Every structure is written in C-alpha cells, then in structure tokens.
C-alpha cells in the first residue's frame, strides 16, 4: 500500500517542489543529482526520500514546469535530465517569494517579545 508515501508527499509537497525547482536553476540535472545537491547544499540535513522525489518530478513535469530528456553524464551514464521551463521559472519566483514571506512571518512570531 502506497499511502505512506502519499502522505509524506502531501506534507513535503510545497517545499520539495521549491527545492527541486531551485536546484534546476543552476542547470539541468537528473533525479539522483537533484537529491545529492539538496543533501549537500543543506549540509546533510535534508534527505530527500525517493518515494517523494520521483512522484514530485513527474508531477512537475506534468504541470510543464520542468521538462526531461535522456542524456549521457560525464561518467558516461545514461540518465534522465530535468530542466526548468519558462513556466517553471515563473513558478519558482512565485514559490520563493511565498516561502520568504512565510519564513519571515514565522521568524517574526518566533522572535522573543520586544519590550515596548
């Protein structure tokens, strides 16, 4: 039964989408590469679950925010590379601003109350 994965996707969906789109800002990348980038960039804090990653990639592709192409890597490996589309760039900008707004808001709430 896949409901376990389904649940996590729902939880992570917004953020994971943002992270994937952001990763692809630096150029095309395959699924393994994306998970590695997110992991190293986050200092090994964020481990992307493949059960979330691949559904997310396919969903983003279905929404035409990214597109894919089979290519050969530097190490001579065949891999499916994903690439941002124009719509994806727009989406990324929107999600970034929403994320910034939200984290600012959360940070503001979490700040110790200033004395008036």
């Amino acid at each position, binding site marked *: *039964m896949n*409901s376990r994965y389904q649940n996590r996707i729902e939880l992570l969906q917004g953020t994971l989408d943002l992270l994937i789109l952001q990763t692809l800002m630096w150029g095309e990348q*395959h699924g393994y590469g994306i998970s590695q980038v997110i992991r190293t960039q986050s200092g090994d804090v964020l481990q992307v679950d493949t059960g979330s990653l691949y559904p997310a990639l396919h969903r983003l592709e279905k929404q035409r925010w990214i597109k894919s192409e089979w290519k050969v890597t530097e190490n001579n490996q065949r891999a499916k590379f994903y690439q941002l589309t124009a719509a994806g760039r727009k989406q990324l900008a929107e999600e970034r601003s929403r994320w910034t707004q939200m984290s600012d808001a959360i940070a503001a709430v979490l700040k110790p109350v200033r004395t008036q």
Partner: protein
Amino acid sequence: MSLFDRQQKDSELDDEIQSHLNMAAKDRIQNGQTVRDARNSALKDFGNVALVKEATREVWSGASLEAFWQDLRYGVRMLAKSPGFALIAILTLALGIGANTAIFSVVNGVLLNPLPYPHPEQIVSLFTEMPNFKNGSISYPNFEDWRRMNRSFSAMTVYRSNGFNLTEHGEPERLHGEMISAGFFEILGVNPILGRTFSADEDRLGANPTVMITEGLWKREYGSDPSIIGRRMVLNGVGRTIIGVVPSNFHLHIQNFQRGGPANDVYVPVGEWNEPHFHNNRAAGWGLDGIGRLKPDVTFEQARADMDRVSRDLAAAYPDVNGSKKAYLLPLKDEIVGDMRPVLLVILGAVMFVLLIACVNVANLLLARATVRSREFAVRIALGAGELRIVRQLLTESVLLAVIGGTLGLVLARFGTAAAIAAMPVNMPRAEDIGLDHRVLLFTLLVSVISGVAFGLAPAWKTSRSDVGSTLKESGRTLAGVRSRTQSIFVVVEMALAVVLLIGAGLMVRTLFVLWGLDPGFDPHNVMTFSFSGPASYKDGSPGLIRSSQRQLHDKLASLPGVEAVSFSWGAQPMQGDNDDFFWIVGRPMPPLSQLPMTLDYEVEPDYLKTMQVQLKRGRFFTAADNEHAPRVAVIDESFAEKYFPGEEPMGHFIDFNTDPNDPDKTPNPQIVGVVAHVNQWGLDSDAKSPLHAQTYLPLMQTPDSVLKRGGLAADVYVRTTRTGVPSFEEMRQRLLEANGELVVYSPEPLDEIVAHSIGQKRFAMILLATFAGIALLLASVGIYGVLSYLVGQRTQEIGVRMALGAQRFDVLRLVLGDGARMTFVGLGIGVIAALALTRLISSMLFGIKPTDPLTFFAVALLLCGIALLACYVPAHRAMRVDPTVALRYE
C-alpha cells in the same frame, strides 16, 4: 492514457530508477566501497523500489485509472467474500433495472424512435372533421379536391381496409387488404421487392384491374415464384394482374377501432373501384382515411392553415354537404401511437419508483455491511488512506453491483419484453419497433451507474466519516446510532414510494371492477361471432336469390345442435365496427343537410335480441313477418329516444334515411315499432364519451334491393350457444359450406374476448401497475424487516436490561413494534400526500372513480399496515424471546 503509452512510460521509469541506482553505486565505488557493497547500500538508500514506482505511476495516471482498477479488483474480492449479500443486492437491482430497461425499450420503440419511413416527420394523417367527430372518413370527391387545391403536400393519398375473397386458386380464401391510391407506397418510401407500384393511370375508373401482393402472401400462396409479375389473381370475382410484391417488413398499423386488423395480403387501386356512388357522392365517406407527405419546407402548422383554406373553399362550393366539414390533420406518429402515450409514460414513472425502492433497499444492505466493514476502513484510514479514497472505493463497489445487476437486468429485458407484450391484453402500436438499440443500452448503463452512485453515496459517506479511534476500539458500535437513523429514513422513503404505487394500482383495479361491472347492454358470454362472404356472382344478382340464400344459411346454422339463437348482421357491430347514416324524423322541419344528425345502424334478424340478450323496453322487436314484402319497420335504442323524442312517444314515427338529394335510390321510410336498451358500441370505457350514441335497428330482410345487390351474399354472424355441447367454429363453418361450397367463412372470435379487448389498454396498465406495486410492497417490507431485525440485534443488551429490571415480554413487543409502526405511519402519511398530488396524472386512465377515491386510499393504508405488521412481527417476536442473562453476558 493508452496501454501502449503506459507500458512505455513504465519501462522509462524503470530505466530512470535503474540509472539512479547505477549512479549512486558508482559514487560509492569511487568512495572506496566494493562493487557488491555499493550496490546494496545504494539500493538500501533508495528505499522500496516498487513503492516508489507505484507512487510515481499514480502521478501520471492522475491517480484515477490505476486507482480505479485497484478499487475494482478490491471490490470484486469484497463481493466474492460475501456472496449472499452480493446475490441479494444484484438480484434486487437486476429486477429494478431490468424492469426499467424493458419499459424504457417499449417507450423508446413506441414513443421516441422515429417511424421507419424516410423523413417520417413530413408524413401526416388526414381525416374529415365533423361536428363532434374529429377523425371521420374522407369522401372521394373531397379527397380529389384536397389533392388538387392544396399547396403544402408533395403527395396525398387515401386508403381503406377491405376484405377480398380469393378464388380460382385452390379453396376460396378470405384475404385482407387495402384499397389505396397511387402514390401511397411512394409517400411511405416503400419499394416493392418485385415489380412496381400503381401508376396514376391504374388508379382510375375503367382502368385495367391490377393488384400488389405482400411478400407473406407471395410466399404462402405462390411459393415465392419469381415469375409472379403479370399473373392473374381473382379477388371478389374480378381478375387482376399482379404488378408488384410489397416487402414484409412494411407495416402500417393505424389503430382501427381499437383493434389492430389482420396483416394485409393485397393492395388494389382505390380509384378504379366501380362502386356506384363512390366517385360522385360527396357526403359518403366509405371508410377512407388519408396520408400525405408535406413538401420539404412546409411545417405542420402551415399545412393545417393551408388545408383550412381548402376546406373553407369546399364548404363555400358545396354548402349542403361540406358546410360543417373540414380537413383534420394529425402527424402520422401521433395517430399510430394514439392514446398509448400517457399510459406508457405513467408506467415508466411507476417502474422508476420500483427502481428507487430497489436502490434504497440495497443502500440499506450496504449500510448494514458498513458496520461490519467499519474496522476495515478505520484501518485503511489509519494507514493514511484519505476519506475521498474510501468513498471512491465504496462507490466503485456499489457501481460494480449496479452494473452487474444492470447487465443481468438487460438480459431479462432482452428476452422478457417481447414475450410480455405478446402476453398482454393490448395491441401495442409499433410492437415491431420495440427492441434493444443503442439508446436503450445507454439508458440501462446510465440508470445502472446513477443508481450505483445513488444507493452507494449515503453508506459511503457515513462510513468514511466514522471516527477512526472509537471504531477501532469499540468494534464498530459507534456507527449504530447514525446508521439506524439513516436506515429508518430509508424505510420511510420506501414505504412512501410503495404507497404511491399501491394507490395507483388500486385505482386501476377499481377502474377495471367498475368496467367489468358495467352492463354493455348485451351478454357477450357464449356468443361466437364470425363473418362469411359468398362468390362474387351474387353481386348485382337477384335480390330474391340473395335473400333466399341468407334464409337457407340461417336455418342451417340455427339447426346445429348446441346453437340457441342466430342472427346475421349488416352494418355496425358492437365494439367491432361502426356504420352510421344521416337521418331525419319525418314531419319535422328539416335542417340543412350538413347539420343532419347521425345514427348507428344495425341491420339484423329477428333473433338478434335473443342472441345478444338485448333488453326490449317498449313495443316489439322484429319478427319473421317483417320481411321484404311487409312495410318497413325500425327499432331504436333508448338514447335515440331520449335525444330525439324527449318526453314524446317515438313509436309510430317514421325515420327518413333518404337525406342525400344526389342519391337516386329512394327507399321507403321505416316506422318505429319498438325501443330497446342502449348497447355499448365504442368499448366499455369509451362509449359514454363518444358523440355518436343513437342506434337504429332495421330488419335485414328489408334491406333495400339496391343495397342488397351491392353487398351480395355476405354477413357478419352472431351465434348464441348453449352452455354445454358447444359446436366449434369449424363445425359451424362446415355447416355453412354444406349449404354453399363457395362461401368463405372467416374471423371467428368469441364476443366476450372482443369485449375484454375493448378495455385491453386499461387492463395492460392495471397489470403492470399492480405488478410494480407488488414488487414495491415486497421490497419495502423486506426493508422494514431488515431494519427492525438490525435494531433488535443492536438493542439486545438494552432489552436484556429492561427485562432484568422487570419489563414484560409485552412491553418489549410494544417497543419493537412501536419502532416499526412509527416508520410505517410516517411513510404512509408521506405516501398518501404524494399520491394525492400524483394520481391526477392517471385520471385520464381511470373510469367511474375519482383519482382521490377514498376507498382505494383506505384499502391501501390497511394493506400496507397489515404487511408492515407482518414484517415487524418476526424481529419483535425474536426480541420478546431475549434471555436477559444471555443478553447481558454477551456484551
């Protein structure tokens, strides 16, 4: 997404994941791991490959198709696990959907499908409208003028049914046919399978006699001989050249006096008919009806206005005969379907009620199962399945049930409909057009899916909303309250629906009792009717010979053992055929011809009253002495007397039938010598509504010579037999043939069947409504039984406590019956209110009672309460026998 695309995407996903694993392994090898370790740890890091694939696949199939198959497989498994439940649910639905499919296929074939002719919407039936009489027949001179003067028809023809004696071809045989004008088959788009149709030249007085035969006759009489065209055929003594064969798939059933006539054998041109007054008497109709085809750009309304203009011009030209006549137009389909439309629509409504009840019953079953399955769903929800997913799963299951039930119902309808219609006491118009076509299949599919969703939705919604935690902990008892309330509402709905159907059926049953109790004015039991027709040589022969032959045939038949009384008859026949005449009472100021009244006329023999058991009211009936040599006499019926002799003695007055100044044959005016009871002419239910009521009897032997010569040796026959030792029709036929071997004796029918037939449509409606009401009552009582049983099961503990605290068995009985009674009464109340609103729709089908007939309502209420009580008794009895100690320990 197609299967091929799917497979491709699947293998691409495999590749993608494989490449992920390869890259991960390569990185690990570069970091110093052995190949084997690298692979293992890469795989371990990746997680469950199958699950990742499945989660991804769900993305591209939009989750729907994949999930649907999964739900479907699961649903099939669940149904297979409880075959008893599945069987009951499927059978209930098959019954409901099957009945709906059957009735809809009838409605579709009869009402919805276009007629099987090219551009059927352009075909119009034509009649002559007279005061109080819409579809009167058309006189031939008027028809010729209509055809000439109209601007809206591309073609117009007339036709009339006629019997023919086929001779010089083996034993003389009676054939049925139509006299038609040229262009008839062209209007209906029928092409002969052999030969050709009539030309305009053949449709004229003095033309060479021709005939078209039907494929059926061609097979039966001529062994499908391909060289039939040009052969000679003797019909009513006239040699005719066969010019064409009409395909057997051509039907034109226009309701003729409530009974579909026999299938046609032959067609002859009507314009060539040499009947003396046919071509020049503008007043006589001769039973001609018309059919026309509108020009492509002309609407029905335009055609009607156009024919109104033609009628006005003709009325101005011939004020004495056409003054109050005009053309009456009716779309052909409306004429064919006739008054079957409201009957079929009411039955379709009733059968939908049955389906609703079936759905409610299955919903109740599903609710009961939902309790059993609530743990299963709680587990699924706890594992992360969304509410929507659960609802979808349950709906898939219920639609699955409905589709299986629908398929089974379709099979039932496919094989049951034709048989059921054939068994029904009704001539269904267009019966040959009834069948399963794409529209019926679509209807069944739609009904199945809609009912699946309808009865699945409530249980699904209830189940998905159940509280997971408590369900898991408390083995599902939390649902009980919600569920029993929903169930009770369902039962109330079922009861209400059943009440409406029962009242509808009850009103029809009452109607039929009223009709059966009606005195038709004659006693149809033990009376056989048939007709005979002699050789054509009698026509234009000596009237004396015709009369003596008639007397001889009469005596032959009357002396047959077992025969009580015999009367030959010409003219109108009660519930079989109409014949009418204009008349006036001698000595009164005569109105214009076009305003003369009409009377039905019956030319009969002295024993007619004895044969038919018609009551003599005043004066006398005919005797053997009222023969061709005696002064002419007449007997009228009571409605004639009331209408034309109000408060006056009719006896002694003379009736004038020589009203047509163009008719050269003047006959002596008969004198009224007696008054008899009114005889029901138009059918048990329609006689009272008919505008033509007055009846006149004339002695057959006094039929004027000119008329007698026209008719030849032929008559309709009524034979009253004794109760025992009844001679068969064959014996009667042989008896007549002994006297005259050239006779054709045909169309035997017991008179009581003819009477029953006159209310066939109402019996048809009654049988169907009663059947559906019965099914509804059965399903509703199963429903209330099921709910009460469930409630008793739920309340076993409560009942145990009550009994332990001193409640008597009677109190328990009252407790349970009280639940049942509440549902029954609420359902009954709603049903009665709904019935008060709905029975108005069938008021046109009722006879002699009001749609709010209190007796019916009361009887239905009583019946429903009785059945409901019975259904409640079993669970109540079980509750009474609860052993408190067992009940308390059980929980």
